[in-house]
């Protein structure tokens, strides 16, 4: 990561009709990739996260029907395992990058900012490993008669 990177995105005049100036956007480097990632992952999460929330929490009895047997039956399908893993990965990166952006606004001292960012990063990485292992190694046949 570059040390000289500007602390805040530099406002840049955007296209559009005269008199209209668009929202500010990073001009380049890591922050521009971060900006683009938040929007692309946001679009994918619009399907993955909103779909997940509607299926698991709203439709068809919602969370009342969720138990071990429900998860075991659902994860027999590689489609749902892939959905849940993609949701895990994108939501963690999107969310932790969002926390990093918020930390830029409220934590001014560089050493503290680095420590807070690292704490979130480590939590995110640990949850990525835990979630990935569970999604791909879960085998309900260890508990016969539950599916």
């Amino acid at each position, binding site marked *: 990561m570059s040390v000289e990177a500007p602390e805040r995105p530099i406002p840049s005049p955007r296209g559009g009709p005269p008199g209209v100036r668009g929202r500010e956007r990073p001009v380049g480097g890591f922050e521009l990739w971060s900006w683009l990632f938040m929007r692309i992952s946001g679009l994918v999460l619009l399907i993955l996260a909103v779909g997940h*929330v509607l299926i698991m929490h709203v439709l068809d009895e919602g*969370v009342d029907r969720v138990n*071990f047997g429900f998860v075991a039956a659902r994860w027999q399908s590689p489609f749902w395992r892939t959905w849940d893993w993609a949701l895990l990965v994108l939501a963690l990166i999107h969310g932790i990058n969002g926390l990093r952006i918020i930390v830029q606004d409220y934590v001014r001292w560089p050493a503290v900012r680095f420590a807070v960012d690292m704490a979130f990063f480590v939590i995110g990485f640990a949850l990525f490993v835990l979630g990935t292992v569970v999604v791909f190694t879960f085998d309900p046949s260890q508990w016969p008669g539950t599916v």
Partner: protein
Amino acid sequence: MAKRKSDVGTLYKGSPGQWSWLLHRITGVAVILFLFAHVVDTAVVGWGPEAYNRVVAVYHNWVVKLLELGLVAAVLYHAINGVKIMVFDFWPSSARHMKGIALASTIIFVLSMIPITIIMGNGILDSAGVF
């Protein structure tokens, strides 16, 4: 220059986007903090039915279900407002219709929350033993 009333005490000095900016942050932080807990509670499924069913029983409590309704609202608000942000970012000329687009996204959010609140509200009343 004398300070107008709106120059003090409000974020963004009264710009129309201030409330959606704030709500986008609050809902985003709420969702990621819940996700931290949710990955762990789902991971318990790897420890078998007895352990997992005890953990998900927490979600069947009516107070937790109230929080769950808040979670669904937070995800939905963040998603719909996120689309609004992308419209402004990718089609800058749409900023001319900023108020209309902001109003439209708020209406979409409120309208979608009506059936969701009714459906989840029934579940909450059910779990609370009202019915």
